[in-house]
């Protein structure tokens, strides 16, 4: 039976890991098969977990999060018969499936939505920590904003430099307030658990916030403008269904990323905004719009 190893955030981080968790739950329900799970508590456990699970005959083993790459690489060598899946990172090995998402494309879309929804022409971005993944979100988001409103102003803040940066809603709320005070009326949060504080602050200030990874619209209905969803649950589900080694890159085209529209936010997204967003989406898929990828070009020129 298969196994999954979550990243530090834990399977209930309301965003990335939780998406994987949902995919797993769905698969469990559909197939009724058991699945082994483990939450990392420290760096060493990554490798320990993968190895332990492999030894217990788990197959495939899904490692959620780029930080697991090193461990996967090592353990995959030791267990060539076991299939591994790593999400958000590439590990080149015959028995490893690597899943990447084009977060920049999804971020572009929510950027467009943010810019079009903003009345002040000022929008915010709050990232958990200043690391490449977050810059990738930021880069795509900025492009989207500028695409929809070249004169738009964007405030950027990173929460912190320690692990606590991903679980400090109080500070998140404070950062959000400072953006609002500067006139921003939409904030895109890519900060894990810290986001909850940001969404709350948006609600208190009657401004908009944009969720990340999972569809977080339900958290604060009415002030959650939308969420940049990363369909981790889908890829986890597929991986559990049929593990196929090799590289998968999921973007808008593959429906790997998207902006979320559901009963919680259909009222807050204006029809013309939705129209523009969908056009942009079509253009990106059609290749008419090229969204710069921070990973390809760290300067994020566009």
């Amino acid at each position, binding site marked *: 039976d298969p196994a999954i190893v979550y990243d530090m955030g*834990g*399977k*209930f*981080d*309301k965003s990335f890991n*939780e998406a994987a968790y949902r995919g797993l739950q769905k698969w469990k329900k559909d197939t009724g098969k058991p699945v082994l799970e483990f939450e990392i508590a420290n760096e060493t456990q990554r490798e320990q977990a993968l190895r332990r699970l492999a030894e217990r005959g788990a197959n495939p083993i899904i490692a959620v999060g780029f930080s697991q790459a090193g461990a996967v690489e090592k353990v995959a060598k030791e267990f060539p018969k076991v299939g591994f899946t790593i999400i958000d990172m590439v590990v080149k090995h015959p028995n490893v499936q690597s899943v990447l998402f084009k977060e920049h494309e999804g971020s572009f879309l929510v950027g467009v939505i943010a810019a079009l929804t903003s009345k002040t022409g000022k929008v915010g971005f709050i990232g958990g920590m*200043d690391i490449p993944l977050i810059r990738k979100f930021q880069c795509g988001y900025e492009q989207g904003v500028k695409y929809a409103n070249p004169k738009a102003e964007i*405030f*950027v*803040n*990173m929460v*912190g*430099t*320690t692990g*606590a940066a991903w*679980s*400090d*809603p*109080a*500070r*998140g*709320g*404070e*950062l959000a*307030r*400072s953006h609002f*005070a*500067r006139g921003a009326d939409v904030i895109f949060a890519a900060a894990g*658990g810290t986001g*909850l*504080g940001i969404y*709350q*602050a948006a609600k208190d200030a009657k401004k908009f916030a944009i969720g990340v990874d999972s569809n977080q619209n339900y*958290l604060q209905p009415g002030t959650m403008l939308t969420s940049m969803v990363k369909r981790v649950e889908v890829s986890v589900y597929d991986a559990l269904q049929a593990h196929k080694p090799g590289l998968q890159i999921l973007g808008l085209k593959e429906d790997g990323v998207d902006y979320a529209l559901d009963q919680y936010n259909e009222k807050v997204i204006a029809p013309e905004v939705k129209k523009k967003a969908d056009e942009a989406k079509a253009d990106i898929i059609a290749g008419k719009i090229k969204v710069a990828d921070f990973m390809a070009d760290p300067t994020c020129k566009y």
Partner: protein
Amino acid sequence: MDAILAGTLLASTLRVATPLILCALAGVLAERSGVIDLGLEGKMLFAAFAAAATGSLFGSTVVALLAGCGVAVLMSWLHGFATVSHRGDQVVSGMALNIIAYGLTAVLAIAWFQQGGQTPPLGDGVRLRPLWPEASATLGPVVGEGLFAHNALVYVALLLVAGVSFFLYRTRLGLRLRAVGENPNMVDAAGLSVSRLRYLALTLNGVLCGLAGAYLVLAQSAAFSPNMTAGRGYMALAAMIFGRWKPVPALAACLLFGFLDTIAVRLQGVKLPHLGELPVQAIQALPYLLTVVLLAAFIGRNVAPAALGRPYVKEH
């Protein structure tokens, strides 16, 4: 424009400083009575959890506040039981409380709310809202937004600074408390109970920590999430030492920390003259760096209470 900036900086400084102030005062009380309190972080965290949990269950601010303070007081008493009644090491006890709080809150939250350690968000009815939201409209950005658009706990914290200094320096109990932190033998010889005084200090300390924790979930955000105190307890401890174990200087230190933090937030991504845009980390390091610099520049030797950290042994 600048008025608005000043106003928001001021407002944000106060909001950020409030939990630090409450914890620092708690620390002052405990350590002035001779009991080192490294457990501020843990008490604040557990209080936050208790407040959030009860708040969401009973939907009542009062209950939430009481629960927060109650739990923190219980932890203070445990600290007292270990260190005052049984002369355990005060530093270890504090560390232990921090670690227990860190783990146990998460365990209980997961077990009771099945949301991976988060508690359900509190309704606006439960949360502490600004007393006078329109303040900025009527009084202008600086005074209004900066000073008058806050929730009750912010003002309570400021009042408590006055309250604690009055208690310490103007009342009988305060006198005894300071004495027991300086020379417990003398207090004992004077026919007073050293442990009773220290328990009193710890009780008040618990209440203050409880308020700090409740503030995090009732005012700053709306739900508990694991480890949400994120080191504030240690910053408060630093502020207390920075303030030389005195309430008002401690307040100043907290405000300073709050201000530096707010400034740092503002400077992120801003192009500075000559320097250009500094890396985010440099800005984030600023508050800590400046604290050290100020400490080295202005503050001389800290004068800790003479009996701080020494368990009182009747012999000798």
